[in-house]
């Protein structure tokens, strides 16, 4: 593939992964809080689920999102030939 096309692919994939991860982030934050009272009817590890999500669950999702992004992007760098030495 010519270099230009590769760069375009790289940026397109970057935008796509960014959009997907932002969507997950949005759900883990705003949807989860919006429905906290309903989630609280379920229980997890003894916690009401709504409370658990805001205190730990969403936080774990954030950590996982950032971890996944770093891994995905570092691989994409190599695939598209823009990885640093």
């Amino acid at each position, binding site marked *: 593939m010519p270099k230009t096309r590769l*760069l375009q692919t790289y940026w397109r994939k970057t935008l796509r992964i*960014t959009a997907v991860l932002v969507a997950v982030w949005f759900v883990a934050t705003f949807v989860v809080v919006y429905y906290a*009272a309903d989630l609280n009817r379920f229980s997890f590890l003894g916690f009401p689920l709504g409370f658990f999500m*805001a205190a730990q669950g969403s936080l774990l999702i954030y950590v996982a*999102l950032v971890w996944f992004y770093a891994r995905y992007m570092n691989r994409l760098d190599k695939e598209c030939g823009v*990885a640093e030495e």
Partner: protein
Amino acid sequence: MGARKNKQYFRSLSRYYGLYTGGFITFIILLAIAEQMGMPNAWIGYIFMVATLGLYTTIGVLSRTADISEYYVAGRRVPAIFNGMASGADWMSAATFIGMAGTLYLSGYDGLAFVMGWTGGYVLVALFLAPFLRKFGQFTIPDFLGARYGGNLPRMIGVLAAILASFIYVVAQIYGVGLISSRFLGIDFTTGVYVGVLGILVCSFLGGAKAITWTQVAQYVILIIAYLVPVVMLSQRITEVPIPQLVYGEVLEKVTEREQEIFNDPAQKEALRLYAQKADMLAAKIKMLPASLETERRQAEARLARLRAERPAKAEEIAAAENFLGHLPRTEMEARQRWGKELEAARASARPPAPHADPFAGKTEASRDNARRNFLALAACLMIGTAGLPHILMRYYTTPTVREARESVFWTLFFIFLLYSAAPALAVLVKFEVYTKLIGTSISDLPSWMAAWGVKINDINHDGILQLAEISINPDIIVLAAPEIAGLPYVVSGLVAAGGLAAALSTADALLLVIASALSHDVYFQMVHPEASTPLRIFLSKALLLVAALVAAFVASLRPDTLLSMVAWAFSIAGAALFPVLALGVFWKRANWAGAVAGMVLGLGVTLFYLVGVRFYGMTPWFGIRDIAAGIFGVPAGFIGVIAASLLTPPPSEETQRLVEYCRYPRLQASETEP
């Protein structure tokens, strides 16, 4: 730097900090033994303070530097994991360490907006900013604005926003330092503030970002140990499992059961009613000013005269009456102020408490909806603010590569998570202790920590038994007093104080550096005197740092009482003024000079207008949103400003578009880019 050399550097860093952590733990154990052998508490407090401050000074002196890149961005050779620790210490401030668990204790679920807001923002940092700013690779955040949008105006507004947000934030840190050092060194608050500033200066003054980075790594180790030890010990004692995050669900269940008993206790209801009565009385008195003050004085005088005339004279009652008269407010202003405060306190005590795990406390559907809106708005502001605060963003300038910048955000969030997941646990565990061991017991046998930490008890229904409504705790003491609440040895208290100090100092250092470099690098070097020599630039930065620290200390010593909300303002300001221009600067090539200026002015303007209006001028809140979430209006205003003004004016130059391309790809020379 070659990969081999990098690896070697990483290994020796790991060895140093491994040894250091072991040393610190040994130090704690030795002190614990000394305590058992009878070392007085005051000594333990002093030893912790002196030892940790001494340590920071040593690191500061060892990493002193005169190199400009080391001074501003630590030479860009901080490996991802160490930068993660440094950013973690940078991030976790006095508000996190001292304040957060207390807020959670008081407001239960609704306080979790801080926990989510102060972690979720890192997703935005990772996705929209950190790797691109690293590729851009200059010294400050306004540098990016200057290069991306051209001209001095965007840079100048960026400097203004950065300084405003950082200054508000640093005042809160210095306040925290003053609080801790005055409490543990037994000096008065103002002296404590200046002692604290000294601690801040030894490090940032000598070595800039380099010294700050390596001190912050050390501070992270101290603060995380200090935060986790009491939570783990408390968890072990209550549940017999030392992993609080896993097991405090059960404790929460017990707290919820106990809440029902307490809330339905007739004595508690009576106490609430009496507080409501007191609040009404105070409100009536304030309304009748100045006549009510006159009546109050006359009554007191009459009572005193009557007592003096009585035979046999009751000396004690006379003294009390004299005292009461002497302490009456002298002017209408004073009365209004003092009674207003009492009214606020009485109203707070009269409010029925909400169950800990229930979201969005409120009597009616509408008030619950409003609480939910505020939670969402605050969480959004804190997250976007995280991605706009310069002292955080500049940390990602310091990694060797783009790749490590990404990994470093992960490590940062991971290290922060360790503390943030423990804070709600601590709040629940302390609540369990208070609700099961103190509420309902006789007021005469309350433990001594309550008086020592200024917990106010007012037996309003005179039954000699402590009801929940009768106790008012300043949330800022929950963490500092946790070891005593849990009956842990004093060495843990000393450790927690050292941890709080580490949290406040590490954040303050970074904030002061942002302020100093915005002025010395962005204003002086970039705009006024581009030929300035390196020694002059560093000298100027240090001088400004000193000035900023002293001004902030002065403001902190006035004890502004709106401090906690001020911290949240800093987030709204940074989020609204900086996040839109930074993110669109990378993701939208079409954004131009006019857009940047319009976006920042509009974002900053709307935020400031809203928060000052609502806070100080009694403006009616829009959609019931409180002033601390002002950014919820400012951020969209910022985005609209950038987009609208950019589209109305010609696109930026090709050179600018090439810069955007350059930032997007980790390995791309400026010459390789396509238009």
